[in-house]
């Protein structure tokens, strides 16, 4: 199958306009006849469901939470980018486009990224109208800040709760449509299969998490906005329930999975403190603006950090990168921290942490100066660790946090299965090999509010979609296969809990396919993961029944999918014999130890096609060409 990205002709800045004009429209009177299923209620899902219902489509929205307001978009702290140039500092759509392409290390599609930059301004306007309380200047106008090392102030923010406020805005719009009867919302439903009939996505099968019933929902198009898969690493900053089952099962029905190995690790997280750690918490990257990162010069130095004199400290980022110092990009900071800990310089009880020290700035500017900027983060640190970071340095360690990879989509957000659209973090498109700060919220909302309403209508209007009811045999077949998988899981009755397998998978992934990867380790992982999967299917224990609320059963299905997805991630990482963005292959580094891209061989999207259980997936390549943003090698020396 040839991948057709359907990028419109014409100059970059005209592509979206011209494609919007060329797209077919659905007559308003006919829209209600189309039933659209939207899975997930994060930024992308809520925005899409609300916008489509406003247009008059018959929408069903569902998620595994009790309420659409709980999706993990809510935890985003920093902000949302938009090139409004309110700061008069030279920002423009083109600059945001360029920064995003470059930040993604030239592994994303120019046309998609340009469109994202184009519509992002409207997102801010839309959210303000919904009542999102973005920060304002004393004069009453919107305030922006620079974020994640960009040179322009283009990040809009709502205290440290931007994701929450944006999600509540979208949730309220969705709620309005639910109240009006235009959207049917189904809570506590987990999507367990995609139903494809005559080559078109025609519905889904979900499990009602309260009573365990399998429910078939037929529709004319399916939109997945189910987020990323960082939880394949077990410990990540994602919420506990974040999982890949929806996209994974769509993959198994024929949707290609693109660039699975592009997973982002965030450098400033609170490190693991106990063996029963269940998740990691991210602290804003802004801490690196004024904190200095160091480790003791001696291996295994367990002294109290305040007892370690200046000349026995190694400020390794400042040493390695004299001009950028502590402000090197996320992937570099993360990788170097891991390297230091691997070499034995790590600190704290687990030796898997480095110090982030504010001592010098407290000495120079005083505690109030530091408190004014970072008080909430210091409080958060104290709450979690019980330590006062004004008195001793913070300990930080990188954690999995975002996945750039996801289901492959064309310019119109459609996967390789006609009628299956994928939005937000669940798709692969806009961030290439590395995502810039404050761009995730932007992408989710752009997809949901301003792109899918156009591209969906084009699909509906230009394709013949026959009437299908959920009594169709394809639904029954799917229900049966899910039921038998559940039955099998429950019947194993071994002696280990699901969580133990998940943890073990996480260890393998972190060890061999985390911040730094090499062929040897990846090959090892390819032996370990199938063996683990086998043990899972022979010794997992899931108490309870399939006919009621059973969180262990939910987790088991998610972990079963992670155990397969993990393998695909590793395979993808192994075939991509270059380093780019978040994907760092130790064999491919410059003399300075930096990522070395191979544009001749790997300027493409790696899209994987499922070939059946026990068979290797097939790799398809979508070539990426750069007409506007010419590739260059990153350097932060």
């Amino acid at each position: 199958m040839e991948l057709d990205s359907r990028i419109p002709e014409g100059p970059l800045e005209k592509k979206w306009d011209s494609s919007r004009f060329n797209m077919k429209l659905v007559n308003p009177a006919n829209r209600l006849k189309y039933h659209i299923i939207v899975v997930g209620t994060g930024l992308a899902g809520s925005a899409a469901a609300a916008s489509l219902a406003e247009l008059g489509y018959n929408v069903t929205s569902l998620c595994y939470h009790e309420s659409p307001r709980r999706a993990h978009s809510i935890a985003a702290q920093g902000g949302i980018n938009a090139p409004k140039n309110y700061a008069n500092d030279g920002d423009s759509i083109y600059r945001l486009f360029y920064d995003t392409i470059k930040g993604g290390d030239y592994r994303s599609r120019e046309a998609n990224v340009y469109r994202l930059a184009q519509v992002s301004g409207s997102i801010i306007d839309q959210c303000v109208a919904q009542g999102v309380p973005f920060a304002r200047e004393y004069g009453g106008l919107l305030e922006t800040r620079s974020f994640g090392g960009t040179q322009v102030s283009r990040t809009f923010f709502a205290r440290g709760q931007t994701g929450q406020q944006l999600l509540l805005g979208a949730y309220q719009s969705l709620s309005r449509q639910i109240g009006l009867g235009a959207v049917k919302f189904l809570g506590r439903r987990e999507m367990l299969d995609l139903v494809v009939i005559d080559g078109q996505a025609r519905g889904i099968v979900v499990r009602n998490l309260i009573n365990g019933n399998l429910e078939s929902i037929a529709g004319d198009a399916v939109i997945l906005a189910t987020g990323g898969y960082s939880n394949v690493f077990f410990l990540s900053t994602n919420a506990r329930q974040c999982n890949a089952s929806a996209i994974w099962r769509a993959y198994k029905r024929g949707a290609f999975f693109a660039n699975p190995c592009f997973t982002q690790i965030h450098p400033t997280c609170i490190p693991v403190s106990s063996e029963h750690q269940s998740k990691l918490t991210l602290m804003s990257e802004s801490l690196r603006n004024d904190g200095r990162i160091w480790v003791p010069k001696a291996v295994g130095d367990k002294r109290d950090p305040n007892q370690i004199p200046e000349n026995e400290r190694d400020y390794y980022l400042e040493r390695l990168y004299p001009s950028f110092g502590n402000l090197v990009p996320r992937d570099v900071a993360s990788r170097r921290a891991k390297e230091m800990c691997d070499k034995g310089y790590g600190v704290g009880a687990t030796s898997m942490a480095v110090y982030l020290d504010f001592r010098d700035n407290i000495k120079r500017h005083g505690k109030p100066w530091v408190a004014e900027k970072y008080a909430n983060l210091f409080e958060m640190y104290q709450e979690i660790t019980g330590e006062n970071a004004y008195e001793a340095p913070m300990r930080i360690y990188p954690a999995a946090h975002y996945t750039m990879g996801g289901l492959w989509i064309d310019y119109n957000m459609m996967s390789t299965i006609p009628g299956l659209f994928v939005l937000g973090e669940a798709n692969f498109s806009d961030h290439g090999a590395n995502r810039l700060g404050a761009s995730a919220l932007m992408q989710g909302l752009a997809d949901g509010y301003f792109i899918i309403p156009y591209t969906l209508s084009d699909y509906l209007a230009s394709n013949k979609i026959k009437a299908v009811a959920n009594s169709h045999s394809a639904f029954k077949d799917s229900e049966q296969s899910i039921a038998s998988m559940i039955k099998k899981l429950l019947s194993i009755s071994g002696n280990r809990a699901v969580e133990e397998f998940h943890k073990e998978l996480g260890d393998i992934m972190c060890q061999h396919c985390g911040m730094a990867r090499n062929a040897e380790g990846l090959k090892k992982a390819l032996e370990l993961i199938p063996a683990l999967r086998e043990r899972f299917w022979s010794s997992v224990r899931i108490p309870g029944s399939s006919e009621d609320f059973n969180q262990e059963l939910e987790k088991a299905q998610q972990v079963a999918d992670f155990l397969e997805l993990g393998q695909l991630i590793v395979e993808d990482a192994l075939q991509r014999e270059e380093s780019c963005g978040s994907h760092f292959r130790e064999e491919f580094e410059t003399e300075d130890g930096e990522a070395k891209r191979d544009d001749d061989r790997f300027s493409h999207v790696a899209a994987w096609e499922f070939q059946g259980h026990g068979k290797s997936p097939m790799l398809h390549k979508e070539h990426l060409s750069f007409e506007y943003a010419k590739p260059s090698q990153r350097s932060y020396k």
Partner: protein
Amino acid sequence: MHITLNIWRQKDRNSQGGLVTYELSDVTPDMSLLEALDLLNLGLVRTGVDAIAFDNDCREGICGTCCLQINGRPHGPLKGVAACQIYMRSFEDNATIIIEPFRAKAFPIVKDLVIDRSAFDRIIQAGGFISVKTGGAPDGNTLPISKHTLETAFDAAACIGCGACVAACKNASAMLFVAAKVAHLGRLPQGQPERKQRALGMVAQMDSEGFGACSNTYACQYECPKQISVDNIAFLNSEILRAKIF
């Protein structure tokens, strides 16, 4: 550390539930309370006992999913945090911890510690929004908003919809939740056109869901993990008074 947990177990909505005692060793002060529950569940599951069902997700106090009544208080002994942000160092060694679901007629129990808070969603659906369709919004800067107005509205907008206000209130009243949304939108200029209908619609839905009335004990404000002020309730009261009389 060693702790004794008295946990509410209930098979489903209509079953009779009861407290069950569990002993848990190997607890460390760095563990969160939810991690202690994970650990307990790990032991139960390995021996084939139904795991204790409890809702949780982000585990950093923002999603509002967790909803545990811990030793008689919503979200436990600390002020200004959700249950997921409680660490075991907040308890003594050999402590007994009683964990129950939030209790209200409007929050029926799903299983064990899991409840159904969809009543909150229906309240929002009855008016907790600004009716703007996607597209056509004016530039964000066309409407200046004073910092004071914005900050006051934001204090209300910080609500995470966890239901601790209902759980804390002796009347199981949802006033703080409703008031927070009414005040968030009603204080902003964007929210003015629908001010009246919003307050009336949301209160009508609140009453029909079976929540109690506010009797001004202010327990909600004290237990709110986001410390939302009862001043917002006064705001809601005056909105209703204004909508119906003036």
